[in-house]
Every structure is written in C-alpha cells, then in structure tokens.
C-alpha cells in the first residue's frame, strides 16, 4: 500500500516534470493575446483562438508546415532506404570488416552537428541548393543514418540466421531475400527507426536556420524562432504554433508507440 502511494507520487512528479511545460504552452496558446502580453505566466481569465487564427492567417504558416512535412517525410524515406540495405548487408551478408563499419558509423554519429554545418552550407551553395528542401533532406538523412542503421542491424541480427538461408535455398537473390522474407519480420524496427528519423528531421533547427532563407523552404522550428520582433515577443502565437508543430509527432507516436519501445529495446533481447 505504502509502495503504491510512493510509486503514484513518483509517477506524478515525473509526469508533471515532462508534461508541465506542454500544459503551460497549451494554456498560453488558448488565452487572448492581449492578456498574454500583460502577464505571460498568469492563469487564463478567458479562452480565445485568436493566437491560432493569427498564426495561420497573418503568417505563411500552412506553407511552413508543408515544408516541414515534405522535408521530414523525404529525409525519413531516404534514410530508411539506405539504413535498411546497410543494416541487412552488415548483419547477414559476408561484408568484410562489417564490425569496423558499424563502429565507424557510431563514432561518426558522435560528431557534433555544428562541426558539419559550414561544409554542408558550402556544398549546398555550390550545388545551387540553398533555400530548397533538398538541401535539408540530404543532411538530415545522413545525420539519422547511423542510429537508424544500428537499430535495424539489431533487428536483422536477432532474426534466425536460417531464415535468410532458407530464402537462399528457395532461390532468392540477396535483394529478394531482403524484400520478401526478412523485411516483414523487421517491420517494428523500421517503424521505430522511421519515428526517430521523422522526429529528428521535424525538430532540427541548426541546419534549417543556416540553409533556408525564405518561406520557400523554411521549416517550423526556424519560423517560430523568427516570430519574435524587435519590440515585442508574441508569446501567444509562439505557443499556438508550437502546439500545432507538436501534433504530427503526437499522432505518429500514438499510432506506433509499441513499435517504438520494441525498437529501442532491440539488441537487449528478443525484438
């Protein structure tokens, strides 16, 4: 009984810590802007959707959300296509030095992204890709590649080796074995890697800030950061935009969360 109370209290604290800022954000987004400007931290006296209206009608926010979705979806697709092939090859094909490749991938992922912003900016300029979605898609896919490959490698490695051998006996080429036999059982791993890549691409700020310059390609995090004017910070609009920006991720995670947990636990046991 005492244990249950302690456990409940502990859970409540953790939840309050994690969800508190989000609740505050939600409340702020639903207050009339004038009231927020007067006292950003007060409890709401009245509810209003004015901040949401302002975000979507006074700014090109639909376009920005569209940019973000396009970039996140394309980077996720590109990253997963490469990661799946790489993970399968490293786990199941006789690739010389496959352990070294995995170690190298891991060490590359430890480099701070800021170290590569400069070169990526120069490369994007040279290719004429500045301020395009492609300029973000390629670095995002590359930055997510190590983690996605590691997650999927764990899944492929946990599959019985005989499954791939059976596919060979039945006449599959390596690609056919991957597509027809090994891919369906690792679907949870693909879902997990997809969610993580999507979230990373959706939230990424540094590259987006450096490589985009107009609403042609600007993504949500950068746009929200630019809401602040010289004389005022429109907290209500920032809160409303942030709430909107959280929705796609909430939806994706809610739909696939059991895969996410399994994906993150892969390698620690049976997937």
């Amino acid at each position: 009984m005492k244990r249950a109370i302690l456990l409940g209290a502990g859970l409540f604290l953790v939840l309050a810590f994690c969800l508190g800022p989000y609740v505050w954000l939600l409340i702020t987004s639903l207050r009339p802007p004038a009231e927020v400007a007067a006292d950003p931290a007060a409890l709401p006296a009245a509810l209003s959707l004015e901040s949401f209206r302002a975000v979507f009608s006074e700014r090109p926010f639909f376009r920005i959300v569209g940019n973000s979705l396009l970039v996140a979806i394309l980077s996720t697709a590109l990253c997963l296509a490469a990661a799946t092939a790489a993970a399968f090859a490293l786990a199941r094909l006789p690739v010389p030095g496959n352990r070294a490749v995995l170690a190298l991938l891991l060490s590359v992922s430890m480099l701070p992204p800021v170290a590569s912003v400069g070169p990526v900016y120069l490369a994007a300029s040279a290719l004429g890709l500045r301020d395009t979605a492609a300029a973000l898609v390629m670095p995002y896919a590359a930055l997510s590649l190590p983690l996605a490959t590691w997650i999927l490698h764990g899944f492929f490695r946990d599959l019985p080796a005989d499954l791939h051998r059976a596919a060979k006996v039945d006449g599959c080429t390596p690609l056919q074995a991957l597509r027809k036999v090994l891919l369906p059982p690792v679907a949870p791993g693909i879902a997990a890697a997809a969610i993580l890549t999507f979230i990373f691409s959706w939230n990424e700020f540094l590259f987006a800030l450096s490589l985009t310059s107009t609403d042609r390609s600007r993504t949500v995090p950068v746009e929200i950061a630019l809401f602040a004017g010289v004389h005022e910070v429109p907290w209500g609009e920032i809160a409303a935009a942030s709430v909107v920006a959280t929705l796609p991720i909430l939806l994706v995670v809610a739909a696939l969360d059991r895969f996410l947990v399994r994906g993150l636990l892969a390698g620690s046991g049976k997937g």
Partner: protein
Amino acid sequence: MTTGIRLEGITKRFGSAVALERVDLEIEPGSFTTLVGPSGCGKSTLLNVIAGLEEPTSGRVFFDGEPAEGKGPAERDVAFVFQSYALYPHLTVYENLAFPLRMAKRPRAEIDARVRETAEKLELGPLLGRKPRALSGGQQQRVALGRAMVRRPKAFLLDEPLSNLDATLRLAMRAELKRLHREIGATFVFVTHDQTEAMSLSDSIAVMNGGRILQHGDPLGVWRDPDDVFVGRFIGSPPMNVLPARFSGREGTVAGVRPQDVRLAPPGRADGHSGTVTLVEPLGPEFHVRVDSGGEEIVAVTAAADGAPPEAGSAVTLVIAAGAIRLFDEKTGRRVV
C-alpha cells in the same frame, strides 16, 4: 530424377579453425545417407557445403558428375530442411509451401496443384490458412518438409530436423521420414548427432569426428565392424567397451568389445576375467550391468528374458567370445584386427 553426390577432398576453414579436413564421400543416387557425429564434428558444415550455402576452402562437389562450383542452392536443385524449420513467419502455410515455386516462376495453376498435393501428403490441408506461429512443433516440422518436397528437388538435405521435437513425436516423424523417402525415391542426406536416429533411418551412414569422416558404410556393417575406436564407441548403445592390452593379449592395442558380447558367468571360471558387479540399470527388455574387473569398468548387456542379472556387489566371471574382440591401435585408434 535421383541424383548422386560426390565430394572430393573438401576442406573448410573458418579463419584458423579447420571445420572439415579433406573429406571424400560418395552418396549413392536415391540413398538415405546420414552424417552422424558429436556436435562440432563438421557434419552441418559439410551439409552446407553440399547445399552451396558455404563454399569449401578447397575441394569439389559433384552432382551426377557435374561440378557444382559457384552454383547456389537453388541452381543445385537441392532442398534444405533446417533444425529451426525457418518457416517464413509472415506467410501462411499455403504461402510458405508456394514460396519456392513462386520464386521459380511456375504458373499459378501448377503452384496451386502442387501445394495442395503436398499438403495432402503431409496432412496439412486444414492448416493451409494458418501462420506458422499458430502451429504446433510437429506441424511446423511438416510444413518445413512440405516446403522442401513441393519443389521436387534432386536431393533433400536435412539438418537435424527432428531435434526440436519431443521424444514421442520424434519417433513418429522418424517413421514418417523413412516412409517419405521410400515414396519419393530422391536422394536424402541427413545430419544428426543421434546414433539411434542414424542407424534406424539410413541406407548408409558416415561417422564424423574432428572434421573428418572416420567410416562410411551401411549401418549394421559399421556397428559390427567399426574401423576406428571412436566409431565403435559412438555407434551403438551402450558404447563399445574399450579395454587395455591385457584383454587383447597384444601390445600396443586396445580391445573393443560390444556390451552385447560380454556374458556374465558364475565366479571362478578360468576362461574369463573375474570382476565385481558395481551397478545394475534395468531398462525393461534388457539390463545394463557395470562390472569392475581389476580397475577397468566393463559394461555388459543381458536380456531380461534370461532372468535378473547378479546384484551389485556379486562376484562374476566376464566371458568374451574370441570372435567378438576388435583390436585397435592404441595411438591412432584405427582398427588393427
């Protein structure tokens, strides 16, 4: 349709570890040949080499006299049954059976006909719509066999397919396998560590140890006349007694005697070795009697029909017929006489 398989000087190394060492083997068309040996003896590796799942480090594999180098399992037209069954978990029984035919791009009608024919033979008809995880171990085993049969391959390669079944089911599937082999008439190469399985199923057995084939022949011949002391101990239950030179009467040799050839007589006889019974194991139709004779443990098997054997602690004379003794070189273990 039946295929002979010949192996010439197969050596397989994994890094510095030698898995197979200059293995030669001739597998007769249509035979049921078993590779038997303890775990790690190289029998599964040899089967993989035959299948084309592993390339040998050196040596050659021939199917009907044709070299098989560089050919994958499908081109060799062999089917493989795995110990783990390796059924495709996301496909139904029907789709599992159809898979090799679909890969071979057979016409749809032919696939359907062959899947249904195979399912009927293995009594899988009612299970065709199920996924593997909804099947019992025995049913999964039959699907694995079916996936091999449906292609009508030149040869069936089976890697310990019965090891994951419980004892009762294993006996039933053993009989089933033998029946299938007779019915299909294709070449079967079977791998097991279980000498009883090897003896009961096979036309010919190849006993392996340490990456080599020590003896290849018909099961009874191998049992009766082991070429090697290891073979004598591995084939047959309980294992052959291996006794020092004073029992063989010849320096530099050891004497191999089957427990079935050791007779227990009353003490004091001059034509045998005296000893004391240390343990009696009743197995129903027979007794395994352990006797200590001058520090050597010798096992004798007596038939229950001959009455109860002497109790533990009794003095006995062990009588071994001269013709039952096989002599092996003390150092190499190879047969001398």
